[in-house]
């Protein structure tokens, strides 16, 4: 049994921190974009046009029922074939955005349907159109109501972001692998990477708690 030497970790900390930086960048971008995607898909999912609604629900069903890794492969190998030569990071962001956009869309759709009809009626009776009503009255309330669930999805996103290392995105997990290829100490570095994820996770949970407290609609 080899001895464990965590000092290597501290010597190579900058590699890990660099990776952590990209993880944070990746996750922040994907989080924000996934909410945009979620709003769009939530709206098309309740569209009065049956083909639009059905197509959306089918799309949601497929992307909910397949692993993120598979979807990442699709984008990583598939996009170049349709002429889109994107860097691994952008591909990773796209993959994460779509995957979590789908999860958040389901949550948001439930939230939208949960806003009482009186809100629609009051807004429409003032003369606002359907889309103006959605934009100004319904969606803001829906987002606040489902923010805990969205928050959970953001935490999941942080952890699942480790998968993009498999499509060569230089985030924390891949950085750990880089360090390992030079020092041959997988246990120490993966352990350290795990610890860093844990810390970031804890920070994210803390931030989310504060955000939820601020935006919750106490009725």
């Amino acid at each position: 049994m080899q001895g464990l030497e965590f000092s290597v970790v501290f010597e190579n900390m900058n590699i890990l921190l660099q990776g952590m930086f990209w993880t944070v960048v990746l996750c922040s971008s994907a989080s924000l974009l996934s909410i945009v995607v979620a709003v769009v898909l939530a709206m098309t999912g309740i569209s009065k046009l049956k083909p639009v609604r059905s197509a959306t629900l089918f799309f949601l069903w497929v992307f909910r029922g397949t692993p993120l890794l598979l979807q990442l492969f699709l984008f990583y190998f598939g996009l170049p074939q349709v002429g889109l030569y994107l860097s691994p990071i952008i591909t990773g962001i796209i993959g994460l955005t779509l995957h979590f956009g789908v999860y958040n869309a389901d949550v948001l759709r439930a939230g939208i349907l949960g806003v009482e009809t009186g809100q629609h009626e009051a807004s429409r009776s003032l003369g606002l159109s359907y889309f103006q009503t959605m934009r100004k009255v319904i969606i803001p309330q829906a987002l606040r109501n489902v923010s805990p669930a969205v928050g959970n999805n953001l935490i999941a996103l942080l952890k699942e972001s480790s998968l993009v290392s498999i499509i060569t995105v230089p985030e924390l997990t891949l950085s750990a692998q880089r360090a390992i290829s030079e020092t041959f100490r997988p246990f120490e570095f993966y352990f350290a990477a795990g610890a860093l994820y844990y810390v970031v996770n804890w920070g994210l949970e803390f931030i989310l708690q504060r955000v939820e407290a601020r935006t919750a609609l106490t009725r």
Partner: protein
Amino acid sequence: MDYELILRVTPFFAKAAWTTVVVSFLSFALGLSIAFPAAFCRLSQNRFLQIPSRVYVSVFRGTPCLIQLFVIYFGGPQIGIQLEPFMAGVLGLGINIGSYMTESIRGAILAVSRGQTEASRSLGLSKFQAMRKVVLPQAAGLMISPLGVNTIALIKGSSLVSAISVLELAYTAHRFTNSTYRPFEMFILASTFYLVIITLTSKAIRNLNGRFAYEK
């Protein structure tokens, strides 16, 4: 769309799908066997039982599953654990999903109203008897849904073991995409298998849930 290719490689995917099912099932079983004791420890008043359980849940829910798998498979040898990909995969997935299942079970037990415990204790049942005869049977019905969610997540999470060379669906999709340069066909093939597995599992879970529906 190369249909001929799809037909040609389907047998490989079917075999890989079976591996996915086996891996998922074994991890599920492992996770559940860890989760029940862990849930009880978590609910116990005893500090020495509660704290390790809380740490377990916090650590394994708070770090990526991929990292956990890598620690076990690549890092294991350093601490004397040398496992084959398949075993390492099942172990890693099982321990990981176990932490989520612990919370599902704990949640269900807590959800059984306190009134039930009070009523049974006031009839003279011991804590243990109350748990066994009154709380757990009701909690059982409540935990099926959350455990079901965990299980579906597990099936999708099983794709991670492709990263430690277990020959399941995701690995096969990756391998054939690399050799045929037809990512869309491979995605469609692999996702079909995943969707079938997951849909069947969801149905089974719903069925099971139905059997437990008490009056509210």
